[in-house]
């Protein structure tokens, strides 16, 4: 195999490190950590206001003018330890607009790490003490759980059982919205899947929004999509890492969309240099050995594309457009 030739195949990073995850804050949310703080798994990092509103307040005449973004504390209410809190947004004609609300939810970090930046109203950035597998998109909220390998093909709602509660399930090639909502209701913490169709994605986002609007919310749940919108199996290299992580605690974060794991002793050997995966076309999902680049070839539809020869596990060789291939580095 020519090393130069295989470098013509688009590369995709198998493991990302370091991982800087952003936890978005809205005006009124209260950060409980500061830059430089060390956080452990499950530590509360912010109080999120559920239904924020903007109230107007006069400052006492002798009070020092606050800065936008600083915390506001109201007068004590009878029977409570402290008054309502909020965030100064802006001042107009001597009256401050303050973002506040009545109910707060705690936001917990799903992994251990060090807080790098806190920006009220914008977000908290934490560098994870671990590595990550990057996905295409993550839906839902940050979550954590024990990784459990599921079916290789498509997971149906009937295939779920209550024994999966508290886990992050790896469900293979594809999953539908009904299965996702049932998994969430049964206490599953998250799902990792290769492909999620647009319709299922839209249905799940709608369901998640309704669930988040409810008074009694379920624990955070996330879906991490690793590849795209069509059905294809998980890449062998990714599957091998996930198999090594089975049974251990992992996290899903949404920005960037990533599965984060903290297993410093886990040695992940780099995939073979010539291992390529076909990500599109009739042989989508298959993997093989890259033999050589063969220059431009004519393919169905009249397209002339740069191609390479790939030897499949059954010993046959196929000419595949280089754009349909990917390799992991």
């Amino acid at each position, binding site marked *: 195999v020519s090393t130069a030739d295989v470098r*013509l195949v688009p590369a995709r990073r198998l493991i990302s490190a370091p991982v800087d995850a952003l936890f978005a804050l809205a005006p009124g949310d209260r950060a409980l950590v500061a830059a430089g703080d060390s956080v452990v798994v499950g530590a509360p990092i912010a109080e999120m206001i559920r239904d924020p509103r903007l109230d107007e307040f006069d400052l006492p005449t002798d009070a020092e003018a606050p800065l936008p973004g600083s915390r506001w504390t109201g007068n004590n209410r009878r029977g409570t330890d402290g008054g309502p809190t909020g965030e100064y947004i*802006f001042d107009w004609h001597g009256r401050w607009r303050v973002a506040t609300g009545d109910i707060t939810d705690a936001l917990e970090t799903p992994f251990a790490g060090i807080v790098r930046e806190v920006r009220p109203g914008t977000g908290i950035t934490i560098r994870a003490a671990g590595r990550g597998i990057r996905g295409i998109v993550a839906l839902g909220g940050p979550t954590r759980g024990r990784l459990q390998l599921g079916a290789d093909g498509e997971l149906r709602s009937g295939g779920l059982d209550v024994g999966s509660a508290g886990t992050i399930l790896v469900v293979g090639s594809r999953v539908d919205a009904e299965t996702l909502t049932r998994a969430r209701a049964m206490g599953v913490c998250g799902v990792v899947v290769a492909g999620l169709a647009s319709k299922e994605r839209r249905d799940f986002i709608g369901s998640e929004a309704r669930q988040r609007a409810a008074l009694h919310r379920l624990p955070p749940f996330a879906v991490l999509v690793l590849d795209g919108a*069509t059905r294809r199996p998980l890449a062998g290299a990714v599957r091998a890492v996930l198999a090594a992580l089975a049974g251990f605690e992992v996290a899903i974060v949404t920005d960037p969309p990533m599965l984060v794991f903290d297993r410093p002793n886990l040695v992940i050997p780099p995939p073979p240099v010539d291992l390529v995966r076909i990500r599109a076309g009739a042989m989508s999902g298959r993997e093989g050995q890259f033999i050589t680049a063969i220059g431009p070839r004519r393919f169905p539809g009249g397209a002339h594309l740069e191609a390479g020869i790939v030897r499949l596990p059954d010993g046959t060789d196929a000419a595949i457009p280089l754009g349909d291939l990917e390799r992991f580095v």
Partner: protein
Amino acid sequence: VTSEPRAFIALDTGAATVAAAMIGRVGSRWRLIGSITMPAGADVEAIIAVLGARAADADPALAVALDLRHGGAVDLPRLEVASHPPRKLAVVAASQRALEPLVATASRSGWLTAAASTDGTDPLAMSTLLLDSGVHGVLVGAGDPPAADERRALGELAALIAAAAGRRPELVVVLAGGMSDHLPAFGDVGRRPGEVVLGPSARRGIPGGPLADLLLELALPPADAHRSLGWGAMALADVLDRRVDVVEIGHDAGTRAAASPGVGGASATAELAVVPTAALAPADPDDAVVDRVGLWSTWGADRHRLRDRLRELRIAPWADATGDGATLRLAAARAALSRLAECTPDWDDRPPADLTVATGGAWAVAAAPTVALALVDVLRRPGAGQFAIDHARILAPLGSIPDADERRAMVADLVDDLLAPLGTVVTPAGMRTGRNAGSVVVHGVTGEVRLDLTPGGLALVDLPPGSSAVAEFTFRDTVKLGARGRHFAIEVTGGLGGLVVDMRDVPLRLPDRADLRGEMLESWQATLLNGRDA
């Protein structure tokens, strides 16, 4: 390019594809030696090495003349441009009426936009928008002078934005029109890392102009491929002495540059529009985007499947470029081109371009005649025009040469190599349907060709690249073809698609039924690919 090299590499690094071209000094002028386009994510050094090896294998004597030793291509000097993902601009105004022209201007100026006005969005939601980590700039505008419905809200709006800008000092703030009077609310602007810029007000119905130029300047980094494309188009117009329209459909944005040659000692001019929503496959395709692709698709998929395929195209834009994938790509390119044209409505009032050049990765894998058809399907103007493709994608790298004279000289040397002619398209408008419209006689060097003209279809005359002819049109009724008349004699040049007489409606009307529409699109494509008249 200052150290007298014999060859150099022009590199256009896009979000989806990387195009590398080798340009060498042959005799007394620069020539295109070879080019290659590969998926983004491939190793650039490996791409250049392959390009160099192919050039040396194809003509060893030329390689020696260019001092190109085996494996030495990676050491050649490079002229490099890259496209960058567009950033997000929050566009805010005191009224919905004032917001619309601001959004129209910002969305064609290299920014993704998120809009809010005080009469449609509460201050908390507006603050949330401005504090969002994905927002990189704020455009806040008002009429100059502000209209009555704006005046009352401008002070509070300025206070809200100044508070957000104080919390995010890296945020770029543009105060347009009457908002300039509220600059003092932002304090000492010289000390913040993000600029606070004063700009003119946006003009209703004319989204281009000084504010658009200012926003483009803020949006595009110096060596950006979109920016360079404007300079390249200007040099090309100057060299050819023609009005040139360059259209690029890319992974992150569509770009349109309209350049005119200098007249009477004045220098050439170019106007640039960079429209992120005219990307080949937008990141989160809504129903309008999907439906528009469906309109141009012969594939017949339902909306959900089409959306899945568009998402896949977004995630891996170079993959699946054969069979159905090639069809989908062209449908998506047409849809993107129509979004691009919608964002430059003021350009329709100008005379049509003499030459339209297609560039960008979206066209890289399509057959040349289908590219010409896609362009005339969407950019429809009555008249005659030439079409070409920047097949090696060197126009943007050449446009990045900082010195205008050097840039012009380089384009003059390479003009025959950089454009692959697609042909001439003649589009008469105003013909009556259902009857013979007249005839055309093409007087070429090899003889005459006569064709009857049937309204509603395409007529093709084989005219190879490099050849020219005079097409003499005789219409039964008065038509619009530049001017109004019945007899026209037009000098035409050949190309990979030949001479196309396009007698379809202007603008194009397609059947509502998907199956009829698909048949019609396929028949038009077959006309250009196989030479049958539709």
